[in-house]
């Protein structure tokens, strides 16, 4: 299986852990992720103003490049997934913006939203298949109670993202089950983590994070797993700023667990788990 | 004879003759609206207040009722056009007769309660019970055999 791969800035720097574990697992599962040659930053947030095209031209370039190779475009970062998928949606549905973008980019061939953008989780579910994944698990996470945290970017707005049932998603829980873990259901799993508010308003984010962590804890979670570098940072770092003043719940990228279950971790890393 | 046969505070027995079209329906509405009133009241359904004979009322007192209520449609609203007018005249006479016998006038009451006045039905029954409870057991007209 071969896919175009869009890494994004964060995965190349602060979230290297996410990328490394994801790529390692992909190799083990026989998936070839070909990193795009000239990718540019997606812009991290999708521009909401109508008629503004400049902010997502870079996304369109990546989408067009993937179309040229005829492959689906895989993302691992939730923000990149969000922005690329929404940009693609606009290109598909808004003829006006599409024409403007094409005129501006002067691509060899017109791009009209033909690429399919998928997230790494969708790759596991739809291309590999969770039953297959379960068979390939070498060290099942049996007995581990893990809370999945979806955040906003994968799910919303539902009409455009069409990632899963936005109010009652199951892909991450199904993923956890495939790894042999027990998924903890809790009401705050699709809440917002506070995103970039932590840049200037840590106290607000700390409060939001506290609600999420407490909700997961009270439903019996022993760890929380996420798919977004910013969720990860907020849950991990701002947990320390919550009234408890310390980390009470370990936070993992979903790919870290994948790596562990597929027994790809080296010995040193393994000691750190749990 | 009073409602509770056991020794204890006096609980009056009240018989209410209610016309089928207005007051009995008003009583039904009190039920539908869960408007509570004392259980001392027992309703006898009659087609019209005009078919309540004075004999029935005297019989009730004779057999131990502490109070009697006759309830019918409001004057002018009788299902049978004019029945409650006859009733009104007849009961005025009966009331005077009972007073003449020395009975407290509160013990025999006539009220007009429409089918839409569930709350009024409950209020009348509550008020009557309280009044008669305050008066104590009826001793006039009683069959002592």
């Amino acid at each position, binding site marked *: 299986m071969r896919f175009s791969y869009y890494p994004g*800035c964060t995965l190349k720097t602060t979230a290297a852990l996410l990328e490394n574990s994801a790529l390692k697992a992909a190799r083990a599962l026989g998936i070839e992720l070909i990193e795009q040659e000239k990718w540019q930053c997606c812009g991290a*947030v999708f521009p*909401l103003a109508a008629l503004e095209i400049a902010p997502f031209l870079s996304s369109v370039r990546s989408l067009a490049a993937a179309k040229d190779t005829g492959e689906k475009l895989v993302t691992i970062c939730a923000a990149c997934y969000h922005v690329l998928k929404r940009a693609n949606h606009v290109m598909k549905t808004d003829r006006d913006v599409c024409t403007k973008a094409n005129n501006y980019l002067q691509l060899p061939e017109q791009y009209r939203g033909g690429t399919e953008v998928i997230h790494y989780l969708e790759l596991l579910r739809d291309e590999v298949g969770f039953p297959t994944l379960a068979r390939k698990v070498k060290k099942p996470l049996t007995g581990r109670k893990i809370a999945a945290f979806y955040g906003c970017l994968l799910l*919303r707005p539902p009409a455009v993202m069409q990632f899963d049932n936005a*109010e009652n998603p199951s892909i991450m829980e199904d993923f956890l089950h495939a790894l042999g873990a027990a998924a903890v259901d809790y009401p705050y799993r699709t809440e*917002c983590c506070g995103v970039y508010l932590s840049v200037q308003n840590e106290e607000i984010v700390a409060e939001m994070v506290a609600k999420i962590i407490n909700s997961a804890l009270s439903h019996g979670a022993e760890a929380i797993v996420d798919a977004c570098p910013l969720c990860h940072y907020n849950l991990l770092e701002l947990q320390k700023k919550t009234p408890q003043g310390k980390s009470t719940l370990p936070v993992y990228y979903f790919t870290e667990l994948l790596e562990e279950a597929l027994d790809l971790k080296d010995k040193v890393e393994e000691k750190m788990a749990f | 004879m009073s409602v509770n046969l056991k020794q204890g505070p006096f609980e009056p027995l009240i018989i209410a003759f209610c016309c089928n079209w207005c007051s009995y329906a008003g009583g039904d509405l009190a039920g539908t609206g869960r408007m509570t009133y004392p259980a001392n009241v027992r309703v006898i359904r009659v087609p019209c207040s005009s078919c309540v004979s004075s004999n029935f009322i005297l019989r009730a007192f004779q057999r131990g009722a502490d109070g009697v209520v006759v309830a019918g449609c409001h004057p002018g609203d009788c299902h049978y056009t004019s029945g409650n007018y006859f009733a009104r005249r007849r009961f005025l006479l009966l009331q005077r007769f009972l007073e003449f016998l020395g009975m407290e006038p509160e013990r025999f009451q006539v009220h007009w309660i429409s089918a839409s006045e569930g709350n009024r039905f409950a209020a009348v029954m509550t008020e009557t019970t309280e009044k008669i409870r305050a008066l104590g057991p009826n001793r006039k007209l009683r069959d002592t055999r």
Partner: protein
Amino acid sequence: MKITRDNLCSSIVKEIAEISGENVAGCYQCGKCTAACPVNTVMDILPHQVLRFLQLGLVEALLNCNTIWICASCFTCAGRCPRGVDLPGIMEALRLILLRKRGFSRIKAGVIPRVADKGMPEQALVSAFRKYTR
């Protein structure tokens, strides 16, 4: 307060409609957006009130509130709005009205090196720049 057609259809009201592409009349004030908002407790004007103020043409108050800067475009409101009103888009439009003014920035000086040191992901910094400056 006097309400006139001129307030209701002022150029700034029209500009907000243009930027966001939304008709605020669509909102019938059920308040679901506010009820769903994860940061409603720290906003000075609640999300549904933002729409109401716009319906009444009261833009000034909105340009001076903290709500538009606290809204993090999480789309919880938009996903649940029974009228399909894109409130995050309207919040963005209100921000842009201010950001497009010369020299306007919500980023406080010195904040960047401080947070960057803490290992905050690039995603956060880029997002903040995109939302707070122009």
